[in-house]
């Protein structure tokens, strides 16, 4: 058979049972490919469950560097009997199905258009390892060896990754090598290898790192000088707390005393978590919380307090599938409206939208500066895909000249030098941002009473209409100030001439950028913009003004981002089209491409 050889462009999926140790084997597989200099994008598709349910690990390998999800599975390793039927069905025609041939595969699982590769995984494991627990673990390594051989993955690289994985338990290295070899040898003896779909070493990774967004946020918070983290466990944000604690233990211990230069509080719920953040920032520390949709819903009352009493808060919202408990282990971008306008009354909140781990790091630092500068809640909007999956990313960097912007805080000396009476909510600079004082600063000056009730310039309670108006109108003016401080969008356009413009944010970027290339192959150039903040930067308005129609790509049912744009920028809804994806899986370039093609055909382009 004369088959076309496809190099470095495939999707491999592993179908496992969760809680069986497959995750680390699969990760070693992905890492090895990354080490071969080939861009990879692994995605963990896991249930909200600890043990026994189906879980998948999907690795997209793309020499061109496309990191979004791609539909169509080229090779599937199906070792979960529960999901076997579904798994066989999911392989693309002409693809490969690798299974555990220790038992015969039922006829019902046989498809004419799929190539079957049986490896007696558990039989080999039982033959070589007496301990049942080890049999399970080594079965995973056996299939890694087999698949690696089928796909031409460099064995030495895998061995290097294994050696690093077990650095602290070197005794485990030889048996793992041994298991790996069992898989390798079985393939070599029984099949033609490598398959026509395969990988080959390249140099397309450079100095990139591969890491998850939650780790990046945690590191960003440490570098930004956060000393208090208060949180309550919820998928997919929990690993931010875990990483914050892990890295604080390495980076934030006082050398002399061994004491901690941070407070890490697991709160009783999300209300308490954000309350603690507000208390800490009110008292002059940098503090933050991390949560997901249900947690943000609970935090609403406090978010309003932060807005109205003007207290900095950094809140990382790692979105998951909503509404309600929704799909706790699936991804969405469906908390846009509820974040932008969280809490009752007239409120608006600053949002930043990272799309890569490096940007999670950078924008977390930015979020702290913005929260202190603007004295309000700033939310970093991430999602499960970005937060929990490993992404190839630019490395983290810290500019040693960067100084924290702690905003307008008066010291004792400042208070002594004041020529007029201190007014906590007095707009002395004309940017609508008042000065604040931290408790304990000065024995006789600068104390004030913080409250969520209506207050005048001197923080005194007042329900007078005119006093209230002065205050809320100043808050609206502060919002205008925010527009000049928030991160700029990224624009991807050489000519800026297309009639249609594409707009997206967050993790949609991966697929959107790839879709732009697909469109280019069809001879269609489409200008694009990636929004990085709310309020919208002036450049976003300009981009929209320069295009007759805007296609907003987002991952929710109700086109929330589109609504936000129309509402905030007062634009004609007819100019806005949507590409939506909200089944809980990351959007693909194909989805965007198909939809845009459809749109462009319906409406002729001049």
């Amino acid at each position: 058979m004369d088959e076309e050889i496809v190099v470095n462009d495939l999707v491999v999926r592993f179908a496992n049972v969760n809680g069986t140790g497959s995750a680390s084997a699969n990760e070693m597989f992905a890492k090895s490919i990354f080490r071969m200099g080939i861009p990879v994008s692994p995605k963990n598709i896991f249930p909200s469950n600890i043990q026994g349910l189906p879980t998948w690990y999907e690795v997209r390998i793309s020499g061109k560097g496309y990191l979004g999800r791609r539909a169509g599975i080229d090779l599937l390793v199906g070792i979960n009997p529960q999901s076997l039927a579904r798994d066989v069905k999911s392989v693309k025609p002409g693809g490969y199905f690798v299974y555990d041939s220790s038992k015969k595969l039922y006829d019902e699982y046989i498809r004419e258009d799929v190539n079957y590769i049986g490896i007696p995984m558990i039989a080999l494991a039982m033959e070589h390892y007496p301990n049942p627990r080890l049999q399970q673990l080594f079965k995973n390594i056996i299939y890694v060896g087999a698949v690696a051989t089928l796909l031409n993955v460099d064995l030495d690289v895998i061995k290097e990754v294994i050696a690093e994985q077990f650095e602290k338990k070197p005794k485990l290295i030889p048996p793992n090598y041994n298991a790996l070899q069992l898989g390798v040898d079985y393939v070599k003896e029984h099949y033609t290898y490598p398959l026509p779909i395969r990988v080959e070493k390249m140099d397309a990774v450079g100095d990139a790192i591969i890491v998850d967004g939650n780790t990046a946020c945690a590191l960003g918070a440490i570098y930004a000088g956060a000393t208090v983290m208060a949180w309550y466990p919820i998928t997919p944000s929990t690993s931010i707390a875990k990483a914050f604690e892990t890295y604080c233990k390495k980076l934030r211990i006082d050398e002399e005393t061994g004491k901690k230069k941070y407070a890490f509080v697991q709160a009783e719920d999300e209300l308490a978590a954000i309350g603690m953040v507000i208390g800490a920032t009110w008292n002059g520390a940098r503090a933050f919380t991390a949560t997901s949709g249900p947690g943000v819903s609970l935090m609403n009352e406090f978010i309003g307090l932060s807005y109205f009493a003007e207290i900095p808060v950094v809140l990382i919202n790692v979105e998951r599938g909503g509404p309600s408990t929704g799909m706790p282990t699936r991804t969405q971008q469906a908390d846009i409206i509820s974040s932008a306008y969280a809490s009752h009354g007239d409120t608006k909140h600053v949002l930043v939208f990272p799309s890569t781990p490096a940007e999670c790091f950078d924008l977390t630092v930015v979020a702290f500066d913005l929260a202190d500068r603007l004295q309000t809640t700033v939310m970093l909007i991430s999602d499960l895909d970005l937060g929990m999956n490993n992404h190839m990313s630019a490395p983290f960097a810290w500019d040693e000249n960067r100084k924290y912007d702690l905003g307008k805080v008066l010291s004792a000396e400042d208070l002594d030098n004041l020529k007029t009476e201190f007014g906590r909510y007095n707009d002395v600079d004309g940017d609508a941002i008042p000065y604040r004082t931290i408790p304990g600063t000065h024995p006789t000056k600068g104390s004030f009473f913080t409250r969520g009730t209506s207050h005048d310039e001197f923080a005194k309670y007042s329900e007078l209409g005119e006093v209230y108006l002065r205050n809320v109108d100043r808050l609206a003016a502060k919002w205008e100030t925010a527009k000049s401080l928030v991160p700029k969008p990224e624009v991807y356009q050489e000519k800026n001439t297309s009639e249609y413009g594409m707009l997206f944010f967050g993790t949609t970027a991966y697929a959107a950028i790839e879709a732009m290339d697909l469109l280019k192959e069809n001879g269609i150039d489409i200008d694009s913009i990636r929004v990085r903040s709310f309020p919208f930067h002036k450049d976003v308005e300009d981009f929209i003004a320069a295009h007759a129609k805007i296609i907003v790509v987002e991952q929710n049912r109700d086109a929330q981002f589109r609504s936000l744009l129309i509402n905030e920028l007062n634009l004609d809804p007819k100019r806005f089209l949507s590409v939506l994806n909200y089944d809980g899986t990351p959007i693909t370039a194909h989805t965007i491409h198909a939809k845009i093609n459809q749109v462009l055909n319906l409406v002729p382009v001049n």
Partner: protein
Amino acid sequence: MSYVKPKFHHPSLKPNKVGYNKADYEGVISTLCAGCGHDSISGAIVQACYEISLEPHRLAKLSGIGCSSKTPTYFLSNSHGFNSVHGRMPSITTGANMANRDLIYLGVSGDGDTASIGMGQFVHAIRRNLNMVYIVMNNGCYGLTKGQDSATADFGSISKAGESNPYQGIDLAGLALELNATFVGRSFSGDKNQLVPMIKAAMAHPGFAFLDVISPCVTFNNNKTSTRSYSHVRAHIESTSIFDFVPEQDEIRVDYPEGKSAEVELFDGSKIHLSKLAPDWNPTDRFSAVNRLHEAKSRGQILTGLYYINTESKDLHEMMNTVDTPLNTLQQKDLCPGNSKLQSINKTFR
């Protein structure tokens, strides 16, 4: 509306050791109903802070929402204050305390604010032994929303409208004891002689100091049939002890009447002098405190005074092992690990 109180100095009032007059501890004029118990507690707080020579800016006062939670404006104008949201004062105080372990945190709450909407945060602040004074101004009702029964209203207490409360009341001091709070007492807004030294002792305590202060609501819950009315409380009050708090450097200058006297030394060398009125009770023995409380209750008495103090209290910072320097004073150079560390972290992700 709030008014600034005219501050005139009575010639007989001397400044305290840190040079402040009593007026320096006052707040704006109260807008609570005339005769409200809460105002008496505010007065006791002013008196206590003046007497222990606290510098007002070394204290932060925090509250939730309710008539009781409004009171922080009526005392200590020179302290930073925070009137937060209903039932959430403990979390705000926790965060504030994490940021700066060196201030004194005075939390004020109501029985609605604590025993209903804020119950979760209250018990968790106890669990963490947060270093704070937590005062509940307990009137058995929701004053600010016009007199509904609160969760601390006694079973069978008859409201102004003549209805008998069918639910068991939550005894917050009993609950605090049960949860191993390290300082627990109950007092009465009308008993300044007891309340002032109790507040002083609570401030000296290095952990969670809980004071449940019965504080009649004259407008909605002061009918004779209510167990939180002035008349009922006065008729049923019973004390654990006659009580005084002696700051570290002060000389002992109190004469105690008959009875067994006891002395409890606090961590900073301050002392609590007690003249015990019940021989079977020991303020450092939690079981005897629990028993004493139940026993008084069964007799229909309202037991006031210090119930329990744990002199080996370790607060949240000690449990967490945070640095002695307040976290809010650490600078960028203390906190930011720098780029070379980051580059070695990058290596672990390749």
